[in-house]
């Protein structure tokens, strides 16, 4: 106590790692971070600003970063627009939302159940299975696009909603983080519940899930990003236009084959990019506290 008070009195506490308040020595760090943050933010400010720009500002020369007369025209144009194959943009948006919601919910259940078994249950293959999953952290999905295509064709889920959801659910980093986090739940809690006669399902549902909320929030974010931002699945495993996602539609807006209308489509593309970006940001802002507490369990041995 006295030591702490002394440290806060002399200001020592606010120097070094994880200070509790401001200290002059921190100014130099602001000098690094503030300019860097501005550079990091510029492209994002550009999206915000362009999405609300009227046509004459989009093509003003010299270009201006910030919007002067904001308008919702780009969003109206986007949502009332038909893609080249006659699908309304709202359909892509609907697909994206549906797929993302189902994927996030399913991923939480499946990964946390597996993580519970790998962390708290005793069985022979436990360590082997976790080791396999850890190796799979190094897995690069983009490398096996073709064999995945063959598997998906064999399963008969080519061109269905399933193909958007199922491949994304096997997320090794998600299982890894959940398992590490559940390791932090004391065994005594589970033993006490067992003595009270609770079944495994009850322990998982009533004890484990409520105790690992931060890790669940983190998995939700990771899966959300994997599903919501995914354009590859629509490109490679779907050829029915009405089953494709907003991320895919956005990629068609910017691809070279549509160079002819990139000029007219710039505002629309910015509006679509903003719709893609905002949910990521909002969810992360709400859940960032949980993410940080999960990440402190992220260590690999």
């Amino acid at each position, binding site marked *: 106590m006295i030591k702490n008070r002394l440290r806060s009195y002399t200001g020592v506490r606010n120097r070094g*790692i994880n200070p*509790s308040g*401001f200290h002059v020595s921190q100014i130099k*760090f602001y000098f690094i*971070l503030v300019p860097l943050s501005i550079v*990091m933010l510029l*492209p*994002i400010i*550009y999206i915000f600003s*362009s999405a609300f720009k009227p046509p004459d500002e989009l093509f003003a*020369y010299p270009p201006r970063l910030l919007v002067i007369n904001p308008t919702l025209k780009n969003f109206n144009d986007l949502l009332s627009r038909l893609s080249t194959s006659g699908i309304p943009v709202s359909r892509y948006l609907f697909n994206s939302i549906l797929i993302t919601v189902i994927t996030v919910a399913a991923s939480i259940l*499946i990964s946390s*159940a597996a993580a*519970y*078994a790998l962390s708290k*249950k*005793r*069985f022979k293959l*436990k360590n082997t*299975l976790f080791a396999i*999953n850890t190796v*799979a952290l*190094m*897995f*690069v999905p*983009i*490398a*096996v696009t*073709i*064999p*995945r295509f*063959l598997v998906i064709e064999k399963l008969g889920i080519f061109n269905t909603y399933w193909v958007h959801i*199922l*491949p994304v*659910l*096997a997320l*090794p*980093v998600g299982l890894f983080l959940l398992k590490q986090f559940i390791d932090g739940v004391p065994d005594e809690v589970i033993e006490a519940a067992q003595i009270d006669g609770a079944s495994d399902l009850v322990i998982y549902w009533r004890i484990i899930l409520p105790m690992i909320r931060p890790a669940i929030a983190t998995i939700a*974010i990771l899966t959300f990003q994997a599903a*919501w*931002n995914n354009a590859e699945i629509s490109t490679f495993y779907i050829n029915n236009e009405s089953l494709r996602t907003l*991320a*895919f539609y956005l*990629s068609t807006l*910017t691809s*070279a084959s549509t160079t002819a209308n990139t000029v007219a489509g*710039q505002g629309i593309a910015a509006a679509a*990019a903003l719709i893609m*970006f905002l949910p*990521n*940001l909002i969810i*992360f802002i709400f859940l960032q506290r949980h993410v*940080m*507490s999960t*990440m*402190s369990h*992220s*260590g*690999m*041995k």
Partner: protein
Amino acid sequence: MQISRSFQRWVGKEGSAYAFLTPYALLFTVFIIIPVAAAFLLSFTFFDAIQPPRFVGLSNYIALITQDDTFMRYVLPNTIQFAVIVGPGGYILAFMLAWVLAQLPKVPRTIFALILYSPSMTASVAMVVVWKTLFSGDQTGYLNSFLLGLGLLREPVQWLQSPQYLMLIMIIVTLWSSMGIGFLAMLAGILEISPELYEAAAIDGMKSRLQEIFYITIPSMRPQMLFGAVMAIVGTFQAGAIGVLLSGSNPTPQYAGQLVVNHIEDYGFLRYEMGYAAAVSVVLLLMVLFFSRLATRLFGSND
């Protein structure tokens, strides 16, 4: 009888663990293990997706090393250049930024962490919208307009179509979005280290912050350093599609931004030489594994 009884005992003891594991294990097998195994097997065949695969031994690998001029002249050097700068570069940058952030109180730290992390959560397809206008080839592009205004350029440059600039832009764009989950893990790792370690070192006479970083901070957070390294390696190889997205074509102009990932797509989906593409995939997976092993050597536990 004997067998069924021991089976029953096994179900009683371990059955529920496997029941919890099954859904994940099934998906993991179908979408990760089988595709990797299939890539490995297909890499020894000739397969055009029409006729059944025909076994050709090592000839895909031999062709890759001896005959694939594009791979040796462009794809491999590009990938190494890209990976060496973006991988370790992005990783060191992430650690340094995490360390700087850890020197600030909670509220400003959270705000800056959010700003630095936000590029990495954005879909690359969404960001391409931005890069295309920023680096647009005519005078309305932000970079051209800026440089023309300063008098540094006489006429607008086709940034994304010029072989000499494409790689540089790819590297900048990827570094910009590389403060991801590994960065957050390292930040959390630095914050977890007990302040007493630093105090003890100060009492023992450690004065410079640099010494602190190398003798206390990094050794105390090896597990997070390793996690961050693996995420950086995977992210680097995964980011390969960016050149095609930026230039709008595969192959990229004069193969300037062609990376292994694009080469796979080029052979697999454009030329339908799936066996050959599978061999390239296997090489890519081995590269990732090799670098991750290297990182484990550096940061893994010594016991």
